[in-house]
């Protein structure tokens, strides 16, 4: 049911990394370090701005992939990865989009399990790749049957 969505990409959305959002996020993961929150600390360390924590890109809007309608309940987040060319800076604007990378099914504990790989991308204003993230979502047989119904 996901095979026909492979390679489908969302329309890019512009996301600006807001200082307050970074501070709140850093606090929520128990890591309110001045490298994320204090401009004077960034200056002192020779950074061009405060940076965002490595998992901060979960807060971005990557746009909607047309035809991808995942159920609200019953999804399992199996794996997650982030890959960076450089850290993300507070204040910068990124162009973000995502696509369905692949879909696999295999037998598991809960019957025939579906594995959906969604790749998210962030580019800077010059179109340079800055970050990619891959999320693996596991869908049990029951969840997929519910979707078909």
């Amino acid at each position, binding site marked *: 049911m996901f095979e026909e969505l492979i390679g489908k990409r969302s329309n890019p959305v512009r996301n600006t990394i807001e200082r307050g959002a970074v501070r709140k*996020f850093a606090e929520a993961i128990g890591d309110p370090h001045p490298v994320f929150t204090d401009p004077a600390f960034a200056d002192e360390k020779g950074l061009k701005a405060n940076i965002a924590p490595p*998992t901060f890109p979960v807060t971005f809007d990557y746009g909607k992939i047309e035809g991808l309608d995942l159920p609200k309940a019953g999804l399992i987040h199996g794996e997650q990865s982030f890959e960076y060319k450089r850290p993300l800076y507070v204040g910068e604007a990124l162009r973000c989009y995502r696509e369905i990378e692949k879909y696999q099914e295999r037998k598991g504990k809960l019957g025939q399990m579906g594995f959906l790989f969604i790749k998210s991308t962030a580019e800077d204003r010059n179109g340079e790749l800055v970050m990619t993230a891959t999320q693996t979502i596991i869908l049990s047989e029951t969840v997929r049957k519910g979707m078909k119904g």
Partner: protein
Amino acid sequence: MSLRVKKPGDRLESITLPPVSRLDLIKYAGASGDFNPIHTIDEAAEKAGLPGMIAHGMWTMGNLGKLFTPYVGEGFIEKFSVRFAGMVFPGDHLTLSATLKEAQGAQQTYEAVAANQDGAKVIKGEIVWRLYGE
């Protein structure tokens, strides 16, 4: 305090988190925008077949990253990948640890783990650290 001097087999200073609280997860829901109620409301989690509310996997992953935060002046996380190997419940005591597996020039690959009070790994991960100026 530097990661430059680490040799394969060396560990970073591990971190023991205070017991996971419901408020931690409510705060993370707000800061991340992930309002799936299985992370904040017991009844919703039970309806989904879980014993009770469970932490966002991304909350635990976010916490794991802080092992490296003290070193951000000398490098950055180039790659951070995890498998969510077990569920985390309110009251759990998590310990975060990282061990250098491999070093090649400016690139260091660490095995990073979050384990609960029973020693069960709830996250099995890998962090590639890139040192500046090598």
